[in-house]
């Protein structure tokens, strides 16, 4: 998996965009994406993958599961990535596998971010013993190495279907972003606009949902991207080592079959390289977007454009 890419995560160094209502924040984000090259690249890649996941049959005409073709063919116009040792069309496998990967990415991303928002913001606002307990829970789960834990969970479950993978990953991966969200929520606690809301007599829940969370939009979106990225990497890693369901069509399971058939050593490298490359590309898309959000949030990190005309005499 990748490691956290953003700047030092623990002490809320990510400044909130501005104190504006949610709608404006999203519009600002949209504009920022268009102007930032990294964000633009990431968005385009992501959109391509989403399109592929939505309309796989349009792009790949072959069936991904039927052993319908001569085995071990190289790339050709009929089979863009060739066929594997079972006579399955690899291009079709990769294309149809996109759906499973993106479903996992988005479901886990949303669920994990949801849990993180809940716990992080609640801890910041409820304070006291609640904050203490939730904080400890978050920290403990943060330090316990996730991948080995997922391995033994999946091992006891004798390999997980997609649902099992989604559940296991969601239940264990929320702590990192929960911590980030809590830090930021803490820094917001004493801002004027919130004080104003309190004075107005708004209830705590209203303040949290309608005032605080919209302000943290950019961080929440970034958390979603981080969690989606980890979901992709963790789930495909588990599938690769054989702890997923080998009968589903997914990039990780294609890699599993490639490894089982020594694809690299028998002259069928594309079987392993192609799905891995897609994982890398999707991961890169999420990471680029995430990094771009860093820059949007922290202007100090934005690239310095040196004007070539500057010449001091």
């Amino acid at each position, binding site marked *: 998996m990748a490691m956290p890419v953003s700047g030092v995560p623990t002490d809320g160094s990510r400044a909130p965009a501005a104190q504006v209502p949610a709608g404006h924040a999203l519009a600002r984000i949209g504009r920022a994406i268009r102007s930032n090259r990294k964000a633009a690249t990431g968005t385009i890649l992501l959109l391509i993958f989403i399109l592929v996941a939505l309309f796989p049959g349009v792009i790949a005409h072959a069936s991904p*599961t*039927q*052993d319908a073709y001569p*085995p*071990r063919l190289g790339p050709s116009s009929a089979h863009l990535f060739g066929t594997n*040792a*079972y*006579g399955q069309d690899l291009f079709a496998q990769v294309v149809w596998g996109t759906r499973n990967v993106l479903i996992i990415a988005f479901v886990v991303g949303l669920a994990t971010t949801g849990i993180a928002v809940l716990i992080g913001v609640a801890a910041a606002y409820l304070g006291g013993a609640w904050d203490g307990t939730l904080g400890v829970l978050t920290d403990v789960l943060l330090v316990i190495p996730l991948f080995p834990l997922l391995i033994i969970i999946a091992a006891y479950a*004798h*390999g997980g279907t997609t649902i099992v993978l989604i559940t296991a990953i969601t239940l264990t991966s929320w702590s990192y972003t929960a911590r980030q969200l809590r830090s930021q929520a803490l820094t917001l606690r004493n801002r004027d606009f919130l004080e104003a809301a309190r004075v107005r007599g708004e209830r705590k829940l209203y303040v949290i949902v309608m005032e605080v969370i919209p302000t943290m939009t950019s961080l929440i979106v970034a958390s979603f991207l981080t969690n989606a990225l980890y979901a992709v990497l963790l789930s495909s890693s588990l599938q690769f080592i054989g702890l997923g369901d*080998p*009968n589903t069509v997914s990039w990780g399971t294609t890699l599993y*079959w490639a490894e*089982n*058939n*020594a694809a690299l*050593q*028998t*002259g*069928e490298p594309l079987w392993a390289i192609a799905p891995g490359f897609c994982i890398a590309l999707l991961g890169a898309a999420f990471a680029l977007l995430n990094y771009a959000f860093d820059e949007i949030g922290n202007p100090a990190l934005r690239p310095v454009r040196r004007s070539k005309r500057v010449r001091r005499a």
Partner: protein
Amino acid sequence: MRRLTRYGIILTAGLLAAGCSAGSSSSTSSGSSSGNTSTNSVLTISNENGALWTCGFNPLNSSYNLLSVGFTYEPLVYVNPLQSGKTTPMLATSWTWGAGNKSLTFTIRPGVKWSDGTPMTAADVAYTFNLIKKYPTLDLTGVWSVLSSVTATAPYTVTMDFSTVAVPYFYYIADQTPIVPQHIFSTIANPATASISHPVGTGPYLMSKCSPQNITYTANPHYWQPGLPRIHTLQYPAFTSNNTANDTLASGQAQWGAQYIPDIQAFYTSKNPNFHYWFPPVLNVSMVPNLTNPLLSNVKVREAISYAIDRDKVSTIGESGYEPPANQTGIVTPTFSSSLNSQALAAWGNGYDVAKAKSLLASAGFHPGSDGIMTNAAGQKLQFTVINIGDYSDWVASMQVIQQDLRAVGISINPSNLSNTDYQADLFNGHYQLAYVEQYTFGPGPYYELNNWLNSANTAPVGKQAASNYERYSSPATDKLLNQYSTTTDPATQQSILNQLQQVMLSQVPIIPVVEGVDWYQYDTSSFTGWPTSSNPYAQPPVWAFPDNEQVLLHLSPK
């Protein structure tokens, strides 16, 4: 900054230098040495066992016998399963059956010494068998279920009396029982569980060094066959994964393999003209119906399943063409072709006949439902789950082909890929509808596998563990045939019974053989000759097959 870069470059350069030089030197220090005398010859074995070595060599205990029988310990007689049970005397020079085949007398070879110098006599043989009787966990082949006594009647004569006539048990008694030294084993406190780190045997090799990663054997200078073995040193590394084991073969570091290698042409044989492989078929891999299932108890349904499977395709796609298609008689060809009832098989017709499958289902009262699945008048659908071993990727792939084939005739199967433990639990206890199974034991003739499948003594009711008759087949007439076979030594009678058993397979379809399971075997002729091949099948070739492995070791010689 500049300081850091410099160190970085030096570090990388250093590693690269170490890498390149080590890479070139180690390729010459591996395995075989051509043109040297036999004292320098080293044969390296590649057999992935899934675990590191525990350095125990007790030949009677199944945890340890893989590494000791054949290398250090020997049987009375070698029986070649690939040449219809052709015999080679080893520790016994001759044997005779008594009246009615109720007793068996062996003449023991004189002049054989244990590796510590003590002479081997009939007393050791009798002791071995009586030790097995005393500790039933050591009776891996069940010889004491048919023996009543084993005595050394003279210094070089052993007489065995049978409680039940069981001629086929000659294989288990003479070939599958390693003889152990009485003077060593009688001093061990618990010979059944002892690991024995320094084995003393009569065999061609001595265990000279053992670590969890590798075992080294050296030739026994006092071996009873003069001039043998011709290879001085054996290296037997422990592999925990197929990939590493396969790599040592492909790089030439190991010369004798017992590996499943995917796409063996590209991976192995294309790398060196001296690399060869041979996969002798030994046992059927079959679709096994649970005969207690009401729909599967209908013989026409089972016949339809048999005709619906495109065995050639399963062999090509699922097994990369390594495992040839099986046939419904259950006779493994070409290994046991001489026993095949060709007339009966010809009457059965083409094994893959979709039209016939469909008409059989129709005559059984099934018609396609709206979803394409065959349904009968009572509304019962031909929908089954098949249990399979999830770890065997070739079996999973084969099942995908079978699933597609059966769907084409309207039978829907849902594969359930289980762990080995869960699979065995379900299979042995009869908690399944269909299963994909290969028997666990092999013998020198088709009788052994058929007996495992068809003998009612080997089955048990659902909920209890069946020994080998997992489909719960039971027929007094078939039992009678099988018992008749075990009382005779006459080949003609044996063949006639086999012909009738094949008729049973064809008319009653208790199991549906799909492909023939093979022994994985690779060999490198660069430095060694004398390998078993399809034209010279003098022994079962993989290193884990004992005591066949001893025969291979005795036939090999350095070039």
